[in-house]
Structures are given as structure tokens and as C-alpha cells.
């Protein structure tokens, strides 16, 4: 069964112009898609994330700062250069182009979710998501792309920050923000970003 999946993944790849899949990435592909496109709800999309970000997450799983029953053993199969080979491979795939919405295009957002995304809620010291995650959540530096990510995954992560089963953020910045979000806001934000494609 696993072999079949790998063979299938290789077949898909051979038709594309992307880099060849490193052998160590084959296992990842079974839940994340052979081109990192994501398999909802098994595994989030990896395409569109930076190589640095993916590599850092693998290490966070390995050290238990991100707790996930599947990913902890899976991440341990990657050691040394394999971490970067896998990260480079999955980050090389393109994702749909999203025309970014820039701050300042609007002063007033009627939708409270959009207001959180583009202006935040500073009465609760929640900054705009796009400050760190980039315009329309396209991702920047160490901050992952949110646009087009699976809603179920974003929701699980925000809850993981709240439950302290995910950490590794600089000075707990993301954890502190997630702690302030209501469950309704988490649902709405997850849906909002997932639909930005």
C-alpha cells in the first residue's frame, strides 16, 4: 500500500518540471500530497511555505515543542541533511497566486473577521494578522503562509497554541495572541484564510 502511494507520487512528479522528490520525502507525501498540496484532513499544505519554516517545524516536532501523535515519530525519520532536502522539496511547489489586499485599501471593515485580519483588535492587544503573516497572509520570513491553508489545520493550530501543545514562537508572541481569540473567532479566521485562494 505504502509502495503503491510512493510509486503513484513518483509518477505524478515525473510529469512536472519540479525537482525530483528526495527519497526521504516519500513518506511525507502520503499525508501532505506528493507535491505538498495537502490532504485534508490528514496533513496540511506544505507548498507555499518557506523551506526555513518547514525545516524549523520538523525540528520543533522532534523536540516536542509541537506535539502531534503522527508528526512526532514521522519527524524522527528525518535527520541531518534530510530535514533540509525535504523542506526544500516541498517549498519548491507553486501555490495559486492571490492578489494581496494591502492595509489602507480600506479604512472600515464591516466584517469583524476581516477587521481582525487587517487591523487587529488593540483593545485586547491583538495585532492585525497581516503584520507578521504578510499582506493577505501570504507569509513572510519565519511566519507561515495562511492564505489557502486548510481551515481544519489553521483551527487546530490556533487551539494547539491555546492548549500549549504548540510552542517555539519567539517570546510566545503567537501563543499570547491565540490565547485571546474566542472559539468563534478561531472558526471564522480559519475559514477566512482557507478561502483566500
Amino acid at each position: 500500500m505504502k509502495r503503491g502511494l510512493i510509486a503513484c507520487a513518483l509518477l505524478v512528479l515525473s510529469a512536472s518540471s519540479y525537482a525530483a522528490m528526495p527519497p526521504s520525502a516519500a513518506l511525507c507525501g502520503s499525508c501532505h500530497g506528493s507535491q505538498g498540496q495537502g490532504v485534508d484532513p490528514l496533513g496540511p499544505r506544505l507548498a507555499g511555505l518557506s523551506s526555513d519554516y518547514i525545516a524549523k517545524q520538523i525540528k520543533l516536532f522532534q523536540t516536542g515543542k509541537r506535539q502531534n501523535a503522527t508528526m512526532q515519530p514521522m519527524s524522527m525519520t528525518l535527520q541531518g541533511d534530510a530535514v533540509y532536502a525535504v523542506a526544500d522539496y516541498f517549498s519548491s511547489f507553486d501555490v495559486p497566486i492571490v492578489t494581496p489586499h494591502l492595509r489602507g485599501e480600506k479604512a472600515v471593515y464591516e466584517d469583524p473577521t476581516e477587521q481582525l485580519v487587517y487591523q487587529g483588535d488593540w483593545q485586547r492587544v491583538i495585532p492585525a494578522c497581516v503584520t507578521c503573516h504578510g499582506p493577505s497572509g501570504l507569509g513572510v520570513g519565519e511566519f507561515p503562509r495562511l492564505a489557502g491553508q486548510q481551515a481544519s489545520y489553521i483551527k487546530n493550530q490556533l487551539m494547539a497554541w491555546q492548549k500549549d501543545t504548540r510552542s517555539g514562537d519567539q517570546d510566545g508572541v503567537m501563543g499570547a495572541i491565540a490565547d485571546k481569540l474566542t472559539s468563534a473567532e478561531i472558526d471564522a479566521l480559519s475559514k477566512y484564510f482557507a478561502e483566500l485562494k
Partner: protein
Amino acid sequence: MKVSHLSWLIISLSPSLLVQAEELPDKQTELVAKVKQVGQAYLVPRDLSSIPQGEFGDKVRLGYQLFVNSQQMRDSYVGNNLNCSNCHMDAGRHANAAPLWAAYFAYPAYRKKNDKVNSYEERLQGCFTYSMNGTPPASGSKELVALSAYSYWLGMSGLMDQAGITTAVAELSDSDLIKGGKREDMLLPEAVKTAMTQPERAALPGKGFPKIAAPKLAYSPKRGSEVYQAHCQSCHGADGQGYESAGVYSLPPLWGPQSFNWGAGMHRVNTAAYFIYENMPFSKSVQLSNQQAWDVAAYINAQERPQDPRFTGDIKQLKDKYHKHQGYYGVSVDGKPELGSKAYGNNPKRSD
């Protein structure tokens, strides 16, 4: 002969250029910072959704838009990658992050230094010249009117709410807007007038950045580099140049050609330390120790950046005249050339 004649003509046609060539006014005179009070209540401006429709409301909204996306003025008035909202948190609404609502009611302000009364628009022009390393919009321009209107509306709506007045903020003429709110003839609702004196309105709690105590050890860029790596680098980059996505540097550069210049208030170590201690890491506030804030402020400000626009060729002269404060302009750190000697250009084009 022909060339010099032509250049004379150009200068005579641009009086603002002539003034700049002579001497730039010191519009970024240091504010008197105050210590933050525990349990202090701050002015809360109204939600942007209550900005009225119509011409006046459009000016207020434009002010907001220029403030959060200052890059729409790139190559006209802005000469670096910064947006006003990089330092003024929550688009100039957040207390202790130099809120616009507090600044507006502190101008016009008499400055002993140049024996001149500076209007609010002149203060804004200073931001363009120094913090944005650009060329300021002209007096009365739509940009300065809009930024003044936004500041006024934030401040006045907060003062009115505090005084229990729920009506719309009164519209002001453009020429009044750009003066600032600290005027005898300022239009104020009676309840606002009686709630506070003019000096009280000019010193609203949360204005500027809160003062912190002097460090126990003299601040050190060397120790600061360790603080930087541990707490700042993930957002601002190992090279301090920030990160860009879709053309926007919401994680701003802190030094180098795309950051604020040697004349900006933030280049002073104390101002940066106050800002950092209170506002960094982003949205966490007060995570660093007093010493760490001072040290990292020193580290950031002991790096080369765009030239002080008042520079006329002599670093020492400029240092003696304008840099008698806690800063590194004209100072050699770690045996390197004195800072300012390799400064970057003023108001470069994006393509430069």
C-alpha cells in the same frame, strides 16, 4: 557660466529647497518623556467605522490610509521602506506608542531652541524629513491636511466620549486642521473645555513613549547584539533589514538605507529604549529587562543609516550642533569609522 546660471534659477524657483540648503529646522526636538503610571486610563478614540461620510470624513479616512500604507507616497515624499504604523501601533491609536490623538493636542508648540512656534503640520513634515527619510509634502497639501484630520478626529472623538458627548466631531477647515489642537481659538465643546485645561490636553497620558529608568550599566551595543539575536532577529532579520511580503515591509528595517535617518528621533538611544521596552516584542509589551532594552537600543542605533539631512559636509560640526544627546552619530564603535561617515543617501528613489 550657463550651468551655474541655470542652477541659480532652479534654486530661486524652489524656495523650499533654498531653505533646506540653508538650514533645516529642528522639528524633531526631543519630547519630555514621562514614566508610565500603573492603572492609568488612556483616551480611547472612536472606532473608524464612525468616521462620518462626506468630504471631511474622506480626509480623515485618507489620513488613516496614508498612515498605514505610507508607501503610496514612496518616491514622492517617502524615501525608505517604512510606514508610519511601524512605530505608531494600531495606526496611531495605541497609548504609549506615540499616539496621534495625544500629539495633535500638543501643537502648535513653542520651541525655545529655534524661538519659533511649530504647527502640527510642521511636526508632520519633520516625520517625512527624518523618520521617513524623504521630502515633506508642502504646507497645506492634501497629505498633511489628511494626516492632520485623522489625528484631530482620533483625539477629539476620544475627548468627546470622555466628556460624555456623543455627537459627531465638528468639522474644521483645512487651514485650522494643520495648526494642531493647542490653540486659544480651538473649537471645543463646552464639556471638553471644562473637563481639562489646555496644558492637560497637551500632555495626555500615553503620549509619546513612557520613560524608563537609566540603565544600571552604561548601555552597550555589544551586549545589545545578543539581545537582538535572542529577541528581535526573527522579525527584523539578522541583518536588521526586516522582511517584505507583497512589497510591504510590515516587519520593518531598523538600520541601513531603507530605515529612518540620523536626524530621526528614534536614532536617540533613550527614545529607542523607551519605545522598545514598552512596545517590543510586537504585541507582547514589556518582555525585556530595563538593561536589555537600553543595550539593544544601543546596538540598533550604533549601525549606519541614511545621513542626517542637516549634514553640510562636516560630521563633527553637525554632531556638536544637533547631536548632544544619547546617540552614536559621529561616534566610532569598535574601531570602525565614525558613524555618519558612511551614511546612506537622503530621499533615494525606490529604484536607486
